[in-house]
């Protein structure tokens, strides 16, 4: 295992079927885009190490299947997650409306209450937008989530979404310190505050 990795974080991606969860992940980990990506079976898993604010964090990302038939499986991934990315499709209002259900599920199955949540409005490259950016922002603020609009296709905002999330998690030491203490990493010097400016205005720290 890499010596300089500060911690390993468990990140979960959830949202309705077809909103582009796997595409976002694929763009983030492999920097590719496949318009014909098949529906996820059960869950997909990828690891990526990113560096945020000088700290290296290894992300274990669980990309869940959005399809209804796999819905029964989802509760098993929530446990122990430090961050969750909630995705909706800006061209499909129904995926935005269903967000409430996802938040409910998150609350039901998540084992910690300080989990960091990030709302991502995907597919902003498309013309036929149905959900306004402000609506998303408002919803995110109401539920104290981070918010960003992104496009897996054009790469817009994808990197930022993950980086912001990780940064927020690292700023919340209670979330990951128990894990890192086992490896003998001191926490005290990682506490420096860091404003959310890195993402060129996409992110709203709330």
């Amino acid at each position: 295992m890499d010596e300089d990795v500060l911690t390993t974080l468990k990140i979960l991606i959830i949202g309705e079927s077809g909103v582009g969860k796997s595409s976002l992940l694929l763009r983030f980990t492999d920097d590719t885009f496949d318009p014909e990506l098949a529906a996820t079976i059960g869950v997909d898993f990828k690891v990526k190490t990113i560096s945020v604010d000088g700290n290296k964090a290894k992300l274990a990302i669980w990309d869940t299947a959005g399809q209804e038939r796999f819905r029964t499986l989802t509760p098993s991934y929530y446990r122990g997650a430090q961050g969750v990315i909630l995705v909706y499709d800006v061209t499909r209002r129904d995926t935005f409306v269903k967000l409430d259900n996802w938040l409910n599920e998150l609350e039901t199955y998540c084992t910690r209450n300080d989990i960091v949540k990030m709302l991502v409005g995907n597919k902003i490259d498309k013309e036929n937008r149905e959900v306004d950016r402000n609506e998303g922002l408002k919803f995110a603020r109401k539920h104290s989530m981070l918010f960003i609009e992104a496009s897996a296709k054009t790469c817009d905002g994808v990197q930022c979404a993950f980086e912001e999330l990780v940064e927020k998690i690292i700023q919340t030491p209670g979330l990951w310190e128990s894990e890192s203490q086992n490896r003998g990493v001191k926490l005290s010097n990682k506490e420096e505050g860091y404003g959310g400016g890195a993402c060129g205005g996409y992110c709203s720290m709330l």
Partner: protein
Amino acid sequence: MAAEEKWNDWAWKPHSAADQAGDKDSCILLGQQLEEPGRFAYAALCGISLAWLFPEKEQSSFRIEFIEGLVKWLDLPDAVLSAMTAFASGLGGEGTETFAQILLKDPILKDNPVVITQDLVSFSLKDGYYDARARVLISHITWLLRIPLEELEALEESLLESLKEQKEEESETAEVSRKKKERRKKLKRYLLIGLATVGGGTVIGLTGGLAAPLVAAGAATIIGSAGAAALGSTAGIAIMASLFGAAGAGLTGYKMKKRVGAIEEFEFLPLTEGKQLHITIAITGWLCTGRYGSFTAPWSSMLQSSEQYCLAWESKYLMELGNALDSLLNGFVNMMAQEALKFTVLSGIVTALTWPASLLTVASVIDNPWGVCLHRSAEVGKHLAHILLSRQQGKRPVTLIGFSLGARVIYFCLQEMAQEKDSQGIIEDVVLLGAPVEGEAKYWKAITKVVSGRIINGFCRGDWLLGFVYRTSSVQLNVAGLQPVDLDDRRMVNVDLSSVVSGHLDYMKQMDTILKAVGIKTKECRLKEKGSARLFAPPAKKTPQAAGSEARGEESAVRDEDAADGGHWSWEPMDSPDSLDTSRDGARPCLSLPTGTP
């Protein structure tokens, strides 16, 4: 037999499936009948369990291979591989309960979740190699799905049964199709493993004690079930021969061709008549004249597997030792002296070099035979290791159980195996009782590599004799047979037998109780379970025998009632003799089968 028939009905669907079994397309594997989420949960549960059971680095290739094979077997898309590999590498272990719940709620599995066990057995056997790790995994999954563990054994037995029975029931059409198939495949491979053609069927002449009298007429037609049919479609004969030791003669046929090292005697004696997909080898610690004059005597009540062997080794020296032990405790040293000795030995005041002269008379009687046997048991253990490594027993899991020097044989066998390559997946469980070996965890660490299931160390703190005879080999009383082995591993189980064993000789005399205390199945508990499995069947005629067998050590009391013929039994480790007594009278209801045979 009622239980077994039920089994055959739903589990193996003998006739209809058998007729078409030669045609692989017509076989729908039970695992493949599941919906995709069900299959996913099934594979995920296996992956997580693999990571939990075998987290060691050296096991990673087994974990990954197993899970990759399972994904293919279940016809899951390759896309799930990354998630499955993550599960098998120890990530996502939090989901076990959810996955188990999903499986238990699945419409296909709801009424008999045991099809998962069945499917896993078929999967594990498909390459003709029943890995001990696979069996441990199957037991674990079975447990997670809240299926009584006896179902697994019943399933293994019915697999064997159907192999034997269906040869006779083979229909003509099936026979024709089988022959065609066989011709196509060319029997070259089969011939290599010693195949004889008798009449219309193909018979593997596995003679000798260990090898099963299997009539393997193309496993595809024999094994009726869809799951097993797939097993059969890949050269069933080769599979079965491989499982049971293709050499034919197997363990009992094993003879030392030449003297190996200093070993003078080394032979396997069958303890039971049955056949099983896993075997147990018991190793006796010493012999004495009279009732315990034979190697098999202490094990008369054991029924861990319906195929059990006993290792006969160096009887001359073990007899000498036994008689020395006997005379030591019955006459040579009087009661008072024994108490003094006990106190002296156990207080730990004396070290090996400062024994009081008064004890030297004792030492002179025991030290020589003990020293000889101590040395020889190590040699025998190493030899046993090489026999197991060469798969004389077939490719199936082995459980080793021994007391006193027999436990030492096992210990050295495991140590030797740990130094060899490809030594994993052979040994399932080991039970060491009153073992005269070092008790430091660091020495025991190595053997976790070769044991897939549990390492049970049965010890007795008050065993002064062991402490005394072992004194020369170890300055401090750090003996496994006297104290728990402090090894941090899920395999390590320490059982304090102090309430059962009052002295070293009790290991032989109280074996029946000890076996129960460490969770090894005995005839008595099998009979009891059988009785409960037949609550609704014709009146259990076994009850009188079950009662009769309470006189433990009575060799022949239950011998004829070989409980191995497919009955259900339950595995319940019991902590103390007291609990044994209560359960004997009152536990019957709790052993009834809740599920699995609707």
